[in-house]
């Protein structure tokens, strides 16, 4: 299924994501890595001192699309191409891989690259590569 090229909206959205990362770093000295923030709320639990802002961050993140829809007056486009069994498998791989590898698109891809971290650059190149390969196999070798 084709999706339209949206350079301006995507750039503006990216700038907001960058601003959020700057806000967390300037205020709390923390990296805006979503997999890290979420996983530290799971057992074995992380520092109790950090739990407060991590919880309010997650609340804001979950409330955002609801508010966005109210303010923009239309639904957020969200089309799943995978059925529920495949989504469940994908979800486990995303959750396991991002925590096992200490970061995801936000922590490694945005914050890590912005800090010129060699680990994050290596991780980003790796998940981009396996992402490209997976979609190629899924769409051009297995199905269509």
């Amino acid at each position: 299924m084709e999706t339209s090229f949206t350079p301006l909206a995507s750039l503006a959205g990216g700038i907001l994501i960058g601003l959020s990362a700057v806000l967390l770093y300037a205020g709390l000295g923390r990296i805006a890595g979503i997999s890290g923030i979420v996983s530290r709320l799971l057992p074995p639990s992380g520092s109790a001192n950090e739990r407060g802002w991590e919880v309010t961050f997650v609340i804001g993140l979950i409330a955002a699309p609801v508010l966005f829809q109210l303010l923009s007056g239309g639904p957020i486009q969200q089309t799943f191409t995978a059925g529920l069994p495949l989504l469940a498998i994908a979800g486990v791989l995303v959750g396991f891989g991002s925590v096992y590898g200490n970061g995801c698109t936000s922590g490694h891809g945005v914050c890590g690259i912005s800090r010129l971290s060699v680990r994050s650059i290596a991780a980003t190149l790796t998940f981009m590569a396996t992402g490209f390969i997976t979609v190629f196999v899924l769409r051009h070798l297995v199905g269509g």
Partner: protein
Amino acid sequence: MARLLLGLAAGLIFGFGLALSGMDNPAKVQNFLDLAGTWDPSLAFVMGGAIAVAMPAFFFLNKLEKPLLDNSFHLPLKAAVDKRLLAGAGIFGIGWGLGGLCPGPALSSAGLATTSALVFVAAMIIGMAVARRV
């Protein structure tokens, strides 16, 4: 209290950015990853926009002694690229390609409460909990 509000604001801004950028849409994410098919390069602009803001800001902030509401900056200490990093990133990328959501948009779309989003998020949290223990 200030720390809690800052966390809330950062979460809201992040979530708005995801919604505006198109990252919440698995079809769009998978099209970004589909170079050989219906390629949609939009998501390169998301990462570009975020890094264009964060990189110079981090550079400047690192000249400060400490952040506004904490005693020190908390940066990852590991420096070496190891097998765990590459294996985790590789597995994450496979799941990202299969489902079309990474952790931020996945968690954020729990707010939209569709069955697909909730199944993905529940599975993701299970995967995270397992990885915390290995």
